[in-house]
């Protein structure tokens, strides 16, 4: 009775599948470029003290408004600070804000979405109505109001963005949970005698991970943009932080003659975000082609 043993055509253990995904991701030059950009950003942030030639906060009033040159790659700003060093150090700020915000939002959103989707009924309705209310604010505006209430500074920005972002994750995970819940193996798990917690975390959550990873990778870019916008509006990072949005704002006054002060930090934001977006697109195609989004 072992007639079917010989026929496992594609006997690939789990890690091989992962390796396959990674290879597939990197085989697309566009996603590979995104991955490289993200890696570069991570390295820059990690090695900032070694890369930056100057102290990003050191004021030198004699050396104000210097043109980009070999000595000052991106020139100096209105206080004589080296723009290149500030851009390098700024990567730490942006990455921190982006990642912390998304960890807050995805952990909270996942738990809420999982429970709402699995329990259904009034729990689900209540959660959905609450997310409706949060999503009734145009993007970023609620974050601005919350940050204003919390007071200026990066901590408020991270709190404010987390508060406005979790409903998106709650909805995503709820949707995933609803579809996974319909799978026969959930009924099978109930018949095994598995309880709600086991079903949610052992059976459903692993099947949502692909969606969560894709969403996070696509959202890092957005959170970096949002945090920079808040910095630009003066509600986020405060002087003399090398935060990119703040740098753009302080350079805006000198746009006519000292274009470099706000152009380079802006470019840094742009390149970081585009890298995350490319990586996110690639991950989505590899991990879950059904998750198409705007």
């Amino acid at each position, binding site marked *: 009775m072992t*007639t079917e043993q010989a026929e496992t055509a594609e006997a690939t253990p789990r890690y091989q599948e992962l390796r396959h995904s990674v290879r597939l991701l990197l085989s697309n030059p566009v996603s590979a470029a995104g991955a490289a950009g993200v890696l570069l950003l991570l390295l820059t942030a990690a090695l900032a003290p070694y890369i930056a030639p100057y102290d990003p906060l050191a004021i030198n009033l004699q050396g104000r408004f210097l043109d980009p040159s070999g000595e000052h790659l991106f020139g100096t700003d209105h206080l004589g600070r080296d723009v290149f060093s500030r851009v390098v150090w700024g990567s730490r700020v942006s990455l921190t804000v982006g990642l912390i915000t998304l960890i807050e939002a995805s952990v909270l959103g996942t738990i809420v979405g999982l429970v709402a989707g699995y329990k259904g009924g009034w729990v689900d309705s209540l959660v959905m109505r609450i997310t409706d209310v949060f999503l009734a604010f145009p993007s970023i505006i609620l974050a601005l109001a919350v940050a204003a209430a919390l007071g200026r500074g990066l901590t408020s920005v991270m709190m404010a963005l987390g508060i406005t972002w979790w409903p998106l994750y709650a909805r995503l995970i709820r949707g995933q949970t609803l579809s996974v819940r319909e799978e026969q193996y959930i009924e099978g798990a109930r018949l095994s005698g598995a309880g709600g917690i086991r079903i949610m975390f052992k059976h459903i959550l692993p099947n949502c991970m692909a969606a969560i990873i894709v969403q996070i990778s696509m959202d890092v870019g957005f959170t970096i943009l949002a945090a920079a916008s808040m910095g630009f509006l003066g509600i986020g990072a405060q002087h003399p932080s090398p935060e990119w949005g703040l740098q753009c704002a302080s350079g805006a006054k000198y746009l006519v003659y000292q274009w470099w002060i706000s152009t380079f930090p802006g470019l840094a934001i742009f390149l970081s975000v585009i890298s995350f977006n490319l990586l996110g697109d690639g991950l989505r195609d590899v991990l879950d082609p059904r998750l198409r989004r705007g």
Partner: protein
Amino acid sequence: MTKTILEIRDLRTYFYTYAGVVKALEGVNLRVNEGDIFGIVGETGCGKSVTALSILRLVPNPGRIIGGEIIFEGRDILKLSEEEMRREIRGKGMAATFQDPSTFLSPSHTIGEHLKDIIKANADDPRGLKGRELNERIISTLAKVNLPDPERVADQYPHELSGGMRQRSMIATGTSGRPSLFIADEATTFLDVTIGAQILRLFQEMNRVDGTTIILITHNLGIISEICNRVAVMYAGQVAETCTTEALFKKPLHPYTVGLLASIPLIDREADELEEIPGTIPNLIHPPEGCRFHPRCKHVMEVCRREVPTICEVSQGHEVACHLFNGEVRSDG
């Protein structure tokens, strides 16, 4: 001598996937006579649906027809341009209906809109056909597939119809151009037996009344026995056996056909245990050398592992691709 409407010679269709080249069809030969209800039967992955799409030249990406001939009404359609194919062959010459009508109809258009464009595409004078006349054509097309209340169906969206009515509507989209060849790919698989039986009767009626030749693709041997007069059994991208339906059930030759017939529970047969065919269908990226069935065959010989069997006509109209019958021409008995 009956006239041949469709002849397929050495058809090869490959799919160029990431994992490798799937040789979905590897040398398919078929001949369908005018007025036949011709069955193609086989299990998952045997290539029966790819055959249907190849005949229509609608093999989806990453698939391609890479060789062979498909001679339809005397012309090799693989040599036609896409425009000729659309204007002269599809719709008017041949048309099809598919397995799952809920995806083969556009969700946000009514059945009437579907038919309007199809009828116009196949009309000799599309501009002259409008208003009342077009409307009448739509209704009569729907009435022909025995849909009750065709006026109402024309105004309904696919999701508002039941499975049986959707399948009938889709058959209507195929028949509206009055094709001489109609391909039905698993048209009753998603339907309940009693509803499916009605659809089969509709095919018989199309065949009898309009003289439409029908190619019926199915995995269900019962359906073949019910309405087909000739049948081809496919296995792993090749035709194993072609014969009349009667011969298929009374005197199957190919070991795969024999095994398949013995493995199904039939309503008028008592059996304590069903026959099993050992092993499973092969991977078509690396198909077995020689005869593709040899790893599972009870009668496997040395030659089967090496050489692809040629087709031999064992008796009048009964062809089999198996080394057991190679060179041997049997008289009846």
